[in-house]
């Protein structure tokens, strides 16, 4: 779809190579998107050879604890329930009262040939660790859910900017004319911050994430009106195209007409293509079982993971799947234990399935939340019902495929896991790295808006080379 009628922005180097009133040029492209000539090379990217062609972003909303998943801290076991004092800077709105170190209630193992640390409860994911690059050096800025979600998903804490997937599609375009290039798989209850997490922001509307709703019609108005057959619809579209084309002939150069014809055709095709992608009937029972579909605990996220695979197979560039409720302030063993169970099998299945289909090598899979969790907690239930609070200084994150360093753990947090300490990078560098792997240069992937060229990292960042194979 995108190359047919999308807006075109000249590459930045082209702009700089030719002196002009930059804002004017860029905006001419942006605002008169539908009057632009279609271009076969209508996207700023790729800027260099890509390691990944597509991306599946597993967004664990609520802030999974790094300390209870992939970053065990013996020191916490030693100091369990000793009083903890936090510096003023780390105060959060919820850190009132006395606080205590808490150990992880989970047992950790060293899995795979790489000996990666992993909570034993990840029964399935532990068999995939040699394909995973765990990263312990990332941090964000905000300890509030919506702002941190916006930060991770759009690069801007306050929302309003394009989602990562919108940037990627703007940069590279779609690979399937029958489907949107950026598909979001949210829960019925949207993450904090809502649809702004996958907004097109200031980019043209076609780059926005298209949420496939978990129930009911996945895309709005996808079904023809009652009483109108598909044949009749086709007949109408054919005549519509003829009449539009006649109109076009009397108005040479009106490319927006051509673009509109194409968008009708894509809309028509989406009516069949989208339900087909969603129809899991064609998958074998073994595959369904592998993803945990049919099991009440894993069904929901299993469907998302399987759908993600089906979508990227069909050429969708960026799929973002949301799992929610990782906000375990208390009873973390019960809460995280249950969440791990709900995503463990589906994610492991996704990695294995991608691998067996030869897709993992050029599909970047990312797992992360909006922040990590604290090594300490209040004295809940006398230390029995403890959990962990929000922590922007460290987080749980890993990558697989798409040119990342399989079987490695990169970076480290401090001895109590409070802060990223080694290979320490702001989330913006994670964004820059993600773009880099997809063949995009964050400094070149810009868009003129509200007085300046904007980019995913906001003001530039660096590639985290340690993560790249």
């Amino acid at each position: 779809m995108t190359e047919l009628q999308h807006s075109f922005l000249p590459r930045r180097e082209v702009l700089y190579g030719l002196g002009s009133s930059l804002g004017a040029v860029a905006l001419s492209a942006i605002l008169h998107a539908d009057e632009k000539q279609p271009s076969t090379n209508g996207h700023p990217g790729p800027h260099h050879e890509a390691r990944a062609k597509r991306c599946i972003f597993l967004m664990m909303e609520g802030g999974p604890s790094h300390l209870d998943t992939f970053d065990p801290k013996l020191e916490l076991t030693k100091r369990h329930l000793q009083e903890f004092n936090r510096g003023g800077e780390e105060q959060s709105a919820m850190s009132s009262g006395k606080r205590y170190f808490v150990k992880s209630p989970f047992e950790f193992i060293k899995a795979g040939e790489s000996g990666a640390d992993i909570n034993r409860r990840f029964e399935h994911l532990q068999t995939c660790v040699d394909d995973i690059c765990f990263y312990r050096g990332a941090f964000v800025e905000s300890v509030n859910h919506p702002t941190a979600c916006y930060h991770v998903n759009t690069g801007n804490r306050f929302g309003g900017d394009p989602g990562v997937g919108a940037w990627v599609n703007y940069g590279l375009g779609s690979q399937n004319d029958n489907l949107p290039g950026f598909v979001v798989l949210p829960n019925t209850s949207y993450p904090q911050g809502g649809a702004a997490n996958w907004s097109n922001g200031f980019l043209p509307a076609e780059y926005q994430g298209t949420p496939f709703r978990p129930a009911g019609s996945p895309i709005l108005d996808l079904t023809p009106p009652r009483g109108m057959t598909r044949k009749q619809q086709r007949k109408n579209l054919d005549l519509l195209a003829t009449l539009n084309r006649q109109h076009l002939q009397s108005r040479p150069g009106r490319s927006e007409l051509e673009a509109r014809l194409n968008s009708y055709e894509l809309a028509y095709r989406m009516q069949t293509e989208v339900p087909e992608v969603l129809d899991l009937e064609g998958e074998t029972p073994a595959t369904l079982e592998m993803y945990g579909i049919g099991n009440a605990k894993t069904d929901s996220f299993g469907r998302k993971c399987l759908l993600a695979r089906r979508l990227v197979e069909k050429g969708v560039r960026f799929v973002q799947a949301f799992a929610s409720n990782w906000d375990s302030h208390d009873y973390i063993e019960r809460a995280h234990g249950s969440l791990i169970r709900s995503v463990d099998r589906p994610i492991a299945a996704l990695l294995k399935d991608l691998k067996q289909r030869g897709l993992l090598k050029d599909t970047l899979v990312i797992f992360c939340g909006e922040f990590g969790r604290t090594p300490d907690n209040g004295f809940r239930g006398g230390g029995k019902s403890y959990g962990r609070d929000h922590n922007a200084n460290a987080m749980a994150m890993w990558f697989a495929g798409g040119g990342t360093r399989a079987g490695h753990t990169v970076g480290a947090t401090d001895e109590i896991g409070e802060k990223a300490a080694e290979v320490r990078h702001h989330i913006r560098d994670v964004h820059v790295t993600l773009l880099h792997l997809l063949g995009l240069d964050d400094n070149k992937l810009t868009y003129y808006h509200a007085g300046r060229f904007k980019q995913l990292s906001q003001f530039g960042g660096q590639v985290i080379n340690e993560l790249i194979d």
Partner: protein
Amino acid sequence: MASAACVMMGVAFRPPPSANFSPQPADMLSNRALPVAVFLATATFVSAEDVDFSRDILPLLSDRCFKCHGPDEANREAGLRLDHKDAILTALESGNHAVVAGDRAKSSVFERISSSETDLKMPPVDSGKKLSSAEIELIGKWIDQGAAWADHWAFVPAKDQPVPAAQAGWNVTNPIDNFIQRDVKAAGLTPSERASRETLIRRATLDLTGLPPTVAEIDSFLADKSENAFEKVVDRLLSSEKYGEHLGRFWLDAARYGDTHGLHLDNERSVWPFRDWVINSFNNNQRFDQFTIEQLAGDLLPNPTLSQRVATGFNRCNVTTSEGGSIDEEYYVRYAVDRVETTATVFLGLTAGCAACHDHKFDPLTQKEFYQLFSYYFSLTERAMDGNALLPPPAVKVPTPSQVAAKAQYAADHAAATAEIRKILADFDYKDPAPDAPLGELSQSDFVWIDDALPAGAKAQGNGANPWQFVGAPDHPVYRGKLSTVRTGTDASITQHFFTDATDKLKIGENSRLFAYVYLDPKNPPETIQLQFNDGQWDHRATWGADKAFNAGRNDVTNKLQGKLPELGKWVRLEVPAADVGLKPGSELNGWAFTQVKGTVHWDAAGVVTTSLSPEQSRSLFAWEQFQKSGKAPGVPDNIRKILDVDRAKRNDAQKTQLTRYFLEKVHPDAQAKLAGPIARQAEINRKQQELEKAIPSTLVMEDRKDPRQAHILERGEYTLKRDPVKSAVPEWIAPAVPGAPSNRLGLAQWLVQEDHPLTARVTVNRFWQQFFGIGLVRTSEDFGVQGERPSHPELLDWLARDFVKSGWDVKKFLKQIVMSSTYQQASVVTADKLAADPENRLLSHGPRFRLDAEVIRDQALSVSGLLVDRIGGKSVKPYQPAGLWKPVGFGGSNTATFVQDKGEKLYRRSMYTFWKRTSPPPSMATFDAPNRETCTVRRARTNTPLQALVLMNDVQFVEAARRFAERTVVEGGDNPASQLSWAFRSVLSRRPSETELKSLLSLYEEYRTEFTANPEAAMKLLAVGESARNEQLNAANVAAWTMVTHLILNLSETVTRG
């Protein structure tokens, strides 16, 4: 060809920077999406002419250099700034000079930009920025030519530009044409013909009212042979009320109008009377300067009218929150920042937001100046937390005209009843039957409010699944009636059953005493029992036993201690004077709580005890007087009390009369019987008045605190990092402060609308221009700063701005001038030559053409279907939207968590009245690029996506519109299919169908008619789409077939385009 281009540039004609009209190398032409190509030409051939600093150099410096060598002091490298005339010529830290006028060789700027050494090269290699060799040459040339400096065009006041001479033989209506045609001519082009009358009326009607013309309006225009026929159409449109709606709709984007708060719960808020104010303001053609002042500071005008206060809703439309744990200070800052950004974007055309964190990188706006503007908005009486309320204060009531009339009527009726009462009293011949008898026994009466059931309207609440346990004998003690209530406390915490919201309220009189009967279980006595009374709040309590219930530790009206527990194992009457628990006479209870700590407690018969005169006694003025003096009677007004205090013998006649009348009216049963009629009428009027008051809408307004909050410069925009304090002030480098103007928002508004302000009028006329031509003269209508686009027609922009101000900021006059211009009236058909020379039509050598806005597309469909409701203003409505859109974004407890679709005519109001939930804007609007209204938007994107096609093809609103449109086609379109089709075509496109269109659509119609005749079930299904009833008199197969055709017409590209 190349030399032609540079000659062109040397003469008066200045090319718009992005207009691609000059000859280009062939490979550039191959990609028309690169209008930038023209600049290669410009730069290459620049040697033949003078360099224009403002046009050629400032944009380069701004983009490549200002980030490190610009206005932002904190990030300035090497002490060098290139944004200031003096600075570029003074010696650097190194002793060299950045620029030596007239000599590029001595200028370090040139040395550095032309260096081939990576370490010296500017801009630095790692900055990602570059200067091309043509650009380097351009800068060298500028230095050689004397390095002339000029201020950025937009910051210099608009000049009275001379109107260029008309081009011989070309059609000139007004000065707009003189300016436009001069440049068309200079580019070697010619203007287009005037558009056909059909095109013109559709264009003007859509542009001025947002709706298509009706067939009757088209016919009347076509039939009008007078010379000013089009002018008559324009005047009619400008005086139509739909004009105000349409103009207002654009303004609502700028005002970021929405019907919810935007953050967290995203509850409903009421600021729609502001929306209606905007509509009225445009319809009344309010002067734009006044329009500005009232919105920014209407509350600060002397004796502001209600309407002027409503106008200040403009800056209450911002997104707010009430999320627990939010920090007030942070949100006060955030709200003020949003208001500065909005004000700057809408009136100044500046991207002020950058300066919240640091000095603006490109424009001269400093961080200090930003916080001086911020200070204007930092001292409002609003609270940081909106309380998730419909009307977070300050708010005002805004009665509609009919409500104002009703109010006046009620007041008159009330006065009439009062007069009648006076007359009855005056005519009542009263003599005290017992003028000297001492007061006998008084009667006491209990009014039982709670007995075997709760009072009407009460909402039963309390601890436990079933908090109100009514029980009966013989298992339980009962004092009165058949039931009592029982409750057993289990642990140390307080437990209770209670209710609120009783509509049948308990009135508290003078000396009222509240009572309740209680039975404490001797086997399981409580530690504490407590009665709590709610007159709107719960802070009225009486406590018996240990002080362990609510507000323990205090002994005041919120927890009046009554001593030990009553005796166990028997019914005891608890009684407490209402005054002891802070309940004043006249107050009314709507709730009551029975509270305890531990134990088992039965409660029964609760209410209020009053003392009164017997009917006999109440016929005697003297008896009543004694009763009053006993201190047990209900209160009387102060003036009556004062008369009572005067010795009986010493009262004058006036006092006697007044006292007697009061007694007769309020106490004497016979007099009261006579007064019953007018008194009942008054009660009814009071009830209606209360209802009316409730129905009167309210809207959010602005109001300043009496003690202003001190604003500070905030480092990096962080509310915690306060730096120097600042006072409210305007950035005087834009325009000097208005002498004598107050240092508040009113002063700010007056500053904006002063006559020679360089920005306000330019920015405003440019936005109007954009509305009518698709692109502004300055394309970046939100950014007139150095990074924004320069105007395509600078002199015209100045002329329009001056003309607008001199006309008295007359919007209708201004718009009429645009619409009447020959430029506007040109046909939009474009030739290949023009397209090659000026692909974006910035020169306006032909009429503009662009996709309609979201609202217009829907309103057009509703209008032609006959469904559109023709009413202005009112509360926002919820038309169709696909199910389940609000639920995913809704927090539990949000009052917009569930979408409840409206019914009836609310489905067919104009789109500007659609309820705008910010976290889930109306989906079909959003699909067609309507903004989410979270921040100010002065220019929408115009995209073209398959999701739009899906809306037009499948959305119930459009399919229903098609089917009702089909019915109209059958009924109003004449007696044969050809004339019907022609009517349908004209309703939407104004023009008649061509031969081929007619033929193909008619044959489609016939095909469908056959299909639907054979399959009546399918026809009925199609005709059942949407909630409006179908016209059953019409043949279903015919209408279904027409529906397919009208549906197709509504999907035509031409339909969603204004050409």
